[in-house]
């Protein structure tokens, strides 16, 4: 299996008034095609910087980011992004919001086909009947679903999710986890998920990377065994409890509260 995403020994600093502030220092991530990688770590350890590096929105000071065997030097339209803030455009309907990337990315689809694709995705996440509503008429969870559709509409190879469920209540979040599994089955992608929620990481991903505190390096990698289709009951098995315990301990090490 080839690796779609390869991040090799990336180092990066931000320039601040009191000199350079290193945020990433020896980061290594590899995600195989079709894989789903979750990245967890203490707050402010540089997780969002990682997403911007993969998306080509910024360049690392040192090290390399490779996507599909090509070195990333700038933005590329094979990436889809969704953030904690759904950032839907309020003057567009939900359907028009989802179609937006197709207005930027070169596409052979006619306007009608673009809208059909958007409708199909909206139906997939359970938003049928809301196509012509404005974002302000939708709940937080529904907006996040629409934002997910927009990130997928141009069939990106890589889907970058930067804490997309972070601002949602617990039950809505669990609903969206299940939606994610349904979507990945129909619309295959290679995923990178930034999250603070350990349960979310083992429920969605097949690989969980723990970053150390700032400056972040790859501290620990957990492989989540493939046990077939996952439902929420999986989170209450002894195996899940074991994984969560290991991750929890690694986070404490990253926070400097436990010895390695």
């Amino acid at each position, binding site marked *: 299996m080839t690796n779609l995403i390869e991040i090799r020994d990336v180092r990066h600093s931000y320039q601040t008034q009191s000199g350079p502030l290193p945020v990433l220092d020896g980061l290594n991530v590899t995600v195989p095609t079709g894989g789903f990688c979750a990245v967890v770590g203490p707050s402010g350890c540089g997780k969002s910087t990682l997403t911007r590096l993969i998306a080509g929105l910024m360049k690392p000071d040192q090290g390399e980011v490779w996507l599909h065997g090509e070195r990333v030097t*700038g933005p590329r339209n094979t990436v889809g992004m969704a953030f904690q803030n759904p950032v839907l455009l309020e003057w567009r309907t939900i359907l028009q919001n989802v179609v937006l990337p197709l207005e930027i990315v070169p596409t052979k689809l006619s306007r009608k086909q673009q809208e059909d694709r958007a409708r199909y995705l909206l139906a997939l996440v359970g938003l049928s009947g809301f196509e012509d509503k404005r974002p302000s008429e939708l709940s937080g969870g529904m907006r996040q679903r629409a934002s997910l559709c*927009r990130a997928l509409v141009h069939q990106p190879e890589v889907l970058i999710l930067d804490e997309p469920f972070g601002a949602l209540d617990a039950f809505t979040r669990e609903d969206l986890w299940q939606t994610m599994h349904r979507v990945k089955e129909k619309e295959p992608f290679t995923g990178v998920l930034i999250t603070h929620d350990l349960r979310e990481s083992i429920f969605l991903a097949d690989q969980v990377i723990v970053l150390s505190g700032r400056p972040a390096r790859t501290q620990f990698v957990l492989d989540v065994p493939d046990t077939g289709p996952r439902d929420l009951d999986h989170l209450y098995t002894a195996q899940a409890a074991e994984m969560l315990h290991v991750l929890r301990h690694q986070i404490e090490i990253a926070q400097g509260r436990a010895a390695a």
Partner: protein
Amino acid sequence: MRLKAILTPIVAVLVFLSLWEALVWIMGWPNYKMASPSDLVPAYIRYWNLFLVMGWQTLWRTVAGLLLAIVVGTALGMVMGFSRTMRDALYPLLVGFNAIPKATVVPIIALMFVGYHDVNTVLIAFMISFFPIAVSISIGLSTLEPEYRDILRSLGASQSTIFWKIALPKTLPEFFGALKVAVTLAFIGTNLMEIVSPHGRGLGALFDSGKTNADYPLMFAVLIALAFLGIVLYYVVVALEKVFAGWAERTPT
């Protein structure tokens, strides 16, 4: 409901006019102290053709000044909104310029372009009204959340695509808010020039001639005509806002 929305302001105006009439009548004021609405009717009837000609003069110059203010204000706002350096450089200059009372600028401009009354008037209307537009556009652009840019930038969109698809529409509600302020300011500018410059035209000049001829009801009639034009232009802006930025209005729940 629709009928009520139209009737309410009309009734409010009628109530205001009756209170005004009653006040003048009860106090027994002569019309040089305070003209009453009933004094105005003969003034309108006598000078109706002047009101039409002068009103049109004032209106088109104000609108021309406003259009100029929109073009220049938007350009300045864009420059300041996108560049931190330009913002730091231009703000003190703009604030300083705006702090100069325009009544003091009027004679300077009148001398600078002596004989070009139309140019002078449009220029003052523009100078007094571009500031709020520039400020609102610059604030709208500089407070755009980075995620909005990232969504399009990660797809390889150019700066101008990001401006047309996101930054501009997102700034429209602020822009229309500023335009409502600019409309009334522009009228002040136009009239300052019309009143001050000799051989002026427009409603300001009509007001001035009312003053020289001690025709007090005419002066009050001009003020009401100005208020009327202001209201008309304001509602034109409101209508445009409904078309272009109606999405920003929330239906009360």
